[in-house]
């Protein structure tokens, strides 16, 4: 039996089409992404680098008069309106003394074979719909030295999903021996998830078995085709911030709200955009081992941000591994400025709560490094079964406030209280020095239940019913830009 709850985070094709592609990708913008020549022209106008075009062949007449000798040693042939990498051939060299070029699989294609391939492209055999197409011949990207050692005869490409101008998820695809120089997952390429914040690879997968029924994928830890295979985790992708910036700018220019951007890194020219995709595939979720839905939901309806702010937001929202890294290095947990804390009902209270929901209550707590002892709102303390203690303290003859802290401390030291109260504590509340009761309460934070001392106060100065002081924060690091990390 399928447990559908486990799949709630996954974005399926139906929801992708209904909720993201139709509302956010207008038809005019899809026309841009479906046309590589138009995409290149638009991106170049905005100073975004794309692979340099060597030749364009639009008709069979042009092909008849094509100067084959003008082709360089290495180049890439692709259809203008191709999909899924169909019709793309990469040539790495020219055969000496012949009009023939060598492919990534060492096969040689002569002029006639290449002409047949060009004709197929012009006939629209590899293109969307049945219409005629155009042949694009462009320069071959020189693999960046950092990524070269992970890719087998091909250039890895980085796919980013951008939504509402914010990078949502990323992966890098490495060509392998099986994939024949192609980086596609279904062709046998290795796909690794990339942490949005750092540009470092996380989890990697590869096609395990392709059968008539379905494709199955497996986790891979090392490259597969080299004498010395390298780990696929923790690869730092060069130019990461530049890549994020380029991808966001691609969305601004193309106006494709839910966009897949494919970027390759050239040794000499840095990141080059080679494709925009208005219907990005969903395999990126498998490479990252997580669903896209929660990330996309968080970005719905946000106001357009500047590129820098969008990058910062993406890193903050989706760069979860920074916390893990910090926790690993410091041995301390990273918490947000505000966290959800569950307070348990006072076990010593003989009056048990009537409703089961009052046995514990979850509240927003401010992690306040400006105070030593934690504080709890009087109303909350009463609801959680400490009303006897607060009523008892009120019955004592205590001045409403003191002139100074010394006077209050002296009074508190001499004050005798019963066992309901752990001690009378001196606090400054609404700019007045007061003596308030401190009680022991049971709370649950980050999954761990513990007893803490909290001073009962009116909490007039804050909207939070619970403030956690320094005594309770010894084993934590606080990230003030975040809330509800745990």
């Amino acid at each position, binding site marked *: 039996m399928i447990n559908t709850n*486990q799949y709630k985070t*996954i974005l399926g094709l139906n929801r992708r089409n*209904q909720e993201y592609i139709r509302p956010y990708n207008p038809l005019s913008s899809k026309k841009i992404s479906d046309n590589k020549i138009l995409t290149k022209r638009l991106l170049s106008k905005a100073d975004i680098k794309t692979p340099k075009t060597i030749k364009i062949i639009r008709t069979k007449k042009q092909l008849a008069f094509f100067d084959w000798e003008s082709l360089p040693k290495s180049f890439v042939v692709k259809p203008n309106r191709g999909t899924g990498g169909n019709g793309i051939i990469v040539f790495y060299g020219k055969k000496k003394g012949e009009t023939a070029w060598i492919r990534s699989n060492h096969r040689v294609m002569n002029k006639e074979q290449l002409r047949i391939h060009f004709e197929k492209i012009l006939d629209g055999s590899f293109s969307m719909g049945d219409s005629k197409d155009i042949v694009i011949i462009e320069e071959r990207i020189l693999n960046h030295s950092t990524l070269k050692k992970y890719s087998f005869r091909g250039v890895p490409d980085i796919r980013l999903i951008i939504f509402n101008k914010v990078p949502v998820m990323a992966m890098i695809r490495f060509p392998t021996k099986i994939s024949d120089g192609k980086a596609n997952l279904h062709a046998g390429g290795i796909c690794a998830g990339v942490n949005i914040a750092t540009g470092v690879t996380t989890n990697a997968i590869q096609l395990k078995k392709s059968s008539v029924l379905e494709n199955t994928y497996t986790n891979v830890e090392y490259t597969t085709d080299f004498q010395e295979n390298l780990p696929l985790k923790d690869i730092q992708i060069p130019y990461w911030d530049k890549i994020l910036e380029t991808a966001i700018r691609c969305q601004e220019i193309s106006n494709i709200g839910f966009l897949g951007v494919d970027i390759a890194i050239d040794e000499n020219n840095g990141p080059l955009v080679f494709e925009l995709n208005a219907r990005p595939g969903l395999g990126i*979720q*498998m490479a990252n*081992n997580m669903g896209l839905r929660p990330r996309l939901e968080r970005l719905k309806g946000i106001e357009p941000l500047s590129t820098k702010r969008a990058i910062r937001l993406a890193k903050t929202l989706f760069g979860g591994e920074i916390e893990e890294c910090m926790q690993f290095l410091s041995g301390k947990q990273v918490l947000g400025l505000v966290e959800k804390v569950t307070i348990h009902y006072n076990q010593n209270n003989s009056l048990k709560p009537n409703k089961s929901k009052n046995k514990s209550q979850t509240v927003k707590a401010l992690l306040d490094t400006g105070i030593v002892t934690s504080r709890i709102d009087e109303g909350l303390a009463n609801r959680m079964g400490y009303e006897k203690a607060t009523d008892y303290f009120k019955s004592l003859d205590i001045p409403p406030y003191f002139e100074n802290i010394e006077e209050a401390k002296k009074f508190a030291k001499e004050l005798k209280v019963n066992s309901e109260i752990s001690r009378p504590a001196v606090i400054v509340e609404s700019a007045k020095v007061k003596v308030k009761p401190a009680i022991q309460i049971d709370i649950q934070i980050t999954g761990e239940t513990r007893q803490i001392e909290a001073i009962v106060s009116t909490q007039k100065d804050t909207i939070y019913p619970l403030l956690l002081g320094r005594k309770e924060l010894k084993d934590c690091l606080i990230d003030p830009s975040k809330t509800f990390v745990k």
Partner: protein
Amino acid sequence: MEEMNTILVWIKDSVITEEILIFMLFIPIIATLVNISRYIIGFKTFGIYAPMTLAFAYVFTGIRFGLLVTAAVIISSLISYSLLKQIRMHYLSRITINYIFITFILLGMLILNELSPWSITTDHHQIATVPPLGIILIAALSDFFVKEYVKKDFLTTIRSLIETVIIGVIGWFLLQSQNLQQFLVQNIWIHIPILLLNLFIGQYKELRFKDFFRFKKISND
């Protein structure tokens, strides 16, 4: 309801034959079947026309003979595509040659079937009585198959083909059911809930059944 029945009786008597009426009433049913198979199950058929054509074709040919013709069409398409791959020619010329291959391979298979002791034809569907329209409809599958095979890899194409044939067979099963035929003719209103069902599928956003297998790995991890 009474008025609707009167209209139906008039249509059957004066406009078209009952057989054509049944076929027409089945068109939305088979189209809905393809719709469900795409968006609820996740089958990628060769569009909506191919599985629908197959379902109607199998009614003409009988299911066993129909599947034999389907197999012949696919095998001959694969052979001709592989042979012609390296030869320069126009797209339509290639498809035409493909049809020449299909015709003769099909003819060969029919002769073999007739001579063979393991003949699959039954008394109901002797080859001689099979309407040629059924065979032509199935042969059109070759067009869809080759178009897909040029753009996608072999396994993806075979998957789409199998899923198309499965829907075609289910469609045939519904089409030849006498009870369902009578039900549709007598309850033409059923097309209103079918219309609503299609509207619902049109809005359906949840995961397709096949997505549960596709993303099983993420869920398990």
